[in-house]
């Protein structure tokens, strides 16, 4: 590898070195604050490396990784999400008994895995990134090993993720068998030359890969793990799954399938359409039946990825901008919503039942206002980024005349209002007598307050003046 090649992957190197540094620090002396600081510093350093890389002319670092603007932009997004998670997790973990320095190692590794995913242009790096991400997630989900549902969730995730990885690998093997290359660019150029017999295997391979990717994104019908894992995992880890894990995977989906021009095959287009429709309908309908806020948000996230698939399927000029903008808005709203849950959660259990939020507006008006704003953003109500984001998704779909999908998106968004409004209404009701005790008074620590404030400002700012971000995105990802 050339010298510039090393510079290209500096953010990844920094991110890989930080967990080592944390481990060494733990070996010298266990100190929660120091390990947190190293983690935070590592993520900031990785973030700072991004402009350094973008100054490079040739950014193909080996055949595995392409650090183009798309990758750098998404890495920036992932690192920012990682930093937020550090701020969100700090008090939450401290309130739990035991040593928590290893948590940061896992968090960093998960971010690293996702960052590798967004830069990968080769099946090997794709698989590598995915596994780094998954293995840290197995542990993170069961991080609170005293909690029965936490351990159950971790086992469930482990089994299903391992199965889905098998599908993915088999799919990759089939594609490789027909094309003879694992590079995305080679696959894209060689696919046209396949004869009918080969195409069957090639398409089956892509179909099996879709299963693997679908599991990670938790789209219907590969969503079964999501509600249990969302509920069982500690609130900050749930945030990580909802943002870093799914975001990185969606970026890869966007890159790989756009590059191989999936719209050239009707069958793939139909597969993704069916998945999108099933996710929008299934996610929104099942969310109606839940009483647990984490489960509601799990199903809502399933639906959101259904919406995102609509724009992905549109694949017009607007599509990539729309998807990126929507992902950012979704990151902000999800982080904000889970941030409030984190603030209200104590060492005994997470505040995840809807009754925990009854009358929240009267006891914690600011927290309730933030959560209201985030839910309205997820529901796509004006003055929040979610409104502009949904508008953009529908615009991207309309541009390539996907009317049926758009109508379903619109109809299911209406259903979604039910469960978002249900949480909001609960917060504004007067607290009932039998209100379940939330063991922690629910005062945000300075770091949590900072995250919630930033999320609120961003959600409103993106809703009122999205032009600035919309100006940056097309330039940044081209």
């Amino acid at each position, binding site marked *: 590898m050339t010298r510039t090649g090393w510079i290209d992957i500096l953010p990844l190197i920094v991110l890989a070195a930080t967990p080592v540094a944390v481990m060494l620090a733990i070996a010298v002396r266990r100190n929660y604050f120091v390990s947190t600081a190293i983690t935070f510093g590592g993520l900031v350093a990785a973030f700072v490396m991004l402009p350094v890389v973008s100054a490079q002319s040739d950014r193909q670092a080996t055949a595995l990784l392409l650090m183009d603007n798309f990758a750098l932009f998404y890495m920036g997004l992932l690192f920012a999400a990682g930093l937020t998670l550090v701020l969100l997790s700090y008090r939450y973990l401290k309130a739990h008994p035991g040593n928590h320095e290893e948590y940061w190692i896992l968090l960093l590794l998960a971010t690293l895995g996702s960052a590798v995913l967004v830069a990968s242009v080769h099946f090997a790096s794709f698989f590598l990134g995915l596994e780094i991400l998954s293995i840290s997630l197995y542990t993170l989900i069961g991080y609170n090993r005293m909690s029965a549902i936490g351990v159950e969730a971790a086992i469930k995730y482990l089994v299903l993720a391992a199965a889905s990885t098998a599908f993915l690998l088999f799919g990759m093997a089939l594609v490789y068998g027909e094309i003879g290359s694992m590079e995305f660019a080679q696959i894209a150029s060689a696919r046209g030359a396949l004869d009918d017999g080969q195409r069957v295997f090639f398409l089956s391979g892509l179909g099996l890969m879709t299963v693997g990717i679908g599991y990670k994104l938790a789209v219907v019908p590969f969503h079964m793990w999501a509600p249990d894992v969302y509920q069982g995992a500690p609130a900050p880890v749930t945030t990580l799954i909802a943002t870093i894990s799914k975001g990185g995977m969606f970026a890869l989906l966007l890159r790989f399938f756009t590059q191989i021009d999936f719209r050239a095959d009707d069958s793939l287009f139909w597969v993704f359409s069916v998945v999108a429709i099933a996710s929008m309908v299934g996610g929104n309908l099942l969310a109606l039946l839940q009483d647990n806020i984490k489960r509601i948000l799990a199903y809502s996230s399933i639906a959101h990825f259904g919406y995102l698939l609509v724009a992905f399927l549109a694949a017009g000029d607007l599509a990539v*901008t729309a998807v990126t903008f929507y992902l950012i808005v979704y990151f902000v709203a999800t982080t904000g919503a889970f941030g409030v849950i984190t603030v209200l959660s104590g060492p005994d259990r997470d505040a995840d039942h809807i009754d925990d939020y009854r009358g929240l507006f009267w006891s914690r008006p600011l927290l309730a206002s933030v959560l209201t704003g985030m839910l*309205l953003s997820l529901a796509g*109500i*004006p*003055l929040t980024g979610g*409104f*502009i984001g949904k*508008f*953009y998704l*529908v*615009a991207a779909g*309309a*541009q390539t005349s996907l*009317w049926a999908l*758009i*109508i379903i998106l*619109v*109809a299911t*968004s*209406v259903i979604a*209002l*039910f469960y978002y*409004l249900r949480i909001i*209404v609960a917060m*504004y009701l007067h607290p009932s007598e039998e209100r379940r005790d939330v063991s922690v008074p629910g005062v945000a620590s300075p770091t949590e307050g900072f995250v919630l404030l930033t999320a609120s400002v961003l959600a409103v700012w993106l809703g009122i*003046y*999205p*032009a600035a971000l*919309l*100006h940056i995105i*097309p330039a940044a990802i081209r």
Partner: protein
Amino acid sequence: MILTWLIVEIFAGGILAWISGRWSRLWPRIISLVTLSVHMVVMIVLWVHYFGPMSPAPHSAFVIETSHSWIPQLGISYHLAMDGLSMLLILLTNFLGIMAVACSWNAIQERVGFFHFNLLWIVASIMGVFLAIDLFLFYFFWELMLVPLYFLIGFWGYENRTYASIKFFIFTQAGGLLMLVAILGLFFVHGNATGVYTFNYNELLGTPMSESTARWLMLGFFAAFAVKLPVVPLHTWLPDAHTQAPTAGSVDLAGLVLKVGAYGMIRFLVPLFPEAALDFSSVAMGLAVVGILYGAVLAFAQTDIKRLVAYTSISHMGFVLLGIFAWNELALEGAVMIMLAHAMTTGALFILVGDLHGRIHTRDMGRMGGLWQTAPRMGGVALFFAVASLGLPGLGNFVGEFLVVLGTYQSNTTMAVVATLGLIVSVVYSLWMIQVAFHGPNQHAWKLPDLNLREGAIMATMAAIILWFGLYPQSILATARQSITNLQQIVATTRPEEKTQAPVDAPNVVLPDEWEAP
């Protein structure tokens, strides 16, 4: 610039009212009243300046306009503009806003700050709807009014408020999202045809498109407006929402939210899709007539007095729909007149019913009767607004309904004849309501305090305005005339066959300009 300030003032007033609610119950009320009153003064000054008897004829369609680039990537601009039609509706919005604050002065004692925040944000977003000329901005304000309305019904409403508020939200949101799809469809049809991607209303007018595209897009807009108006069979949210909302909410719903639907049809639906609307007009007029009769008959069947008033709205808004799709000068002026007069009468009736509920704690007419003896002022006022609502000549509603029927007669005689039946049924339910609630023996031996000074002042003001509308409608219609003419010209240029559309055998009624004056 002044348009921006007019909207921002109310939004800011709402936030201030919310904040002040933390310390006091009085301050939110005072802040809201002052905000809206200042706004009203400015609006009246603007009205006299631009549409007064001394002011010159406006040289362009819009008298005040402000435009800034907002999201240039999609051709979205922050574009507000005011013409006579918007002016009238904003004056109405502002006035009813003041009435809503006044009528809930004592009735609302919980979460006063948040209540007034919602009230002012509803008023401000509705004004935004009446001013927005960019379709995205229009949709933005259209959606923005829903959340505060939802809170208003959901928190301060009556016993069944949660059901009513969610039903209202879902219905209007579903209609709104269909409109969003239609707006985007229009955006891309226009962009593909001309290469200019924009949400600017003025540029989107006259977009060339195929017949079936126009029909589908028009139906998307119609869905949103028809839910708000409401058009039977999309009306089922209305009786629930109006009945369960607090008085101020009912006033806003009946007086303003329904008008937003009618305004959307006049400003956007017909001008943007003239031919599709013409093809659709017989269906729409049929729905209108069904709504007029259905609403009236169901109103008569109610025992809940507030629900009765709610159903009368469906009937009256049927006339508005009829007038809009008849699309000639008389019918449109009539539709605008009904919008204004209906807002006044129904608003007043809701306030009155609210006052009554505050005294006897029931809306069941079976438990009323003979109230005139104990509260004669209340009875008199109720009679006044009931006869206004049934269309007694000399009061505002009569002018509107008469003009609509007259205008409709020119384009569709059958519809006009059937619609007239609605006027008869409205007499039945209005007088029946007065009969049951206020006349007869006082079986339950009610002893009520009569209207107090505040309530009396509200009623007197609204009654005076209804009289003004009825006796001198020319002053109102003159403001709207120029914009109606402009809209008709826009439509006429794209449907040249318009002139020949009127049945030859229909008498061509041409009235002198001053005929409305007594």
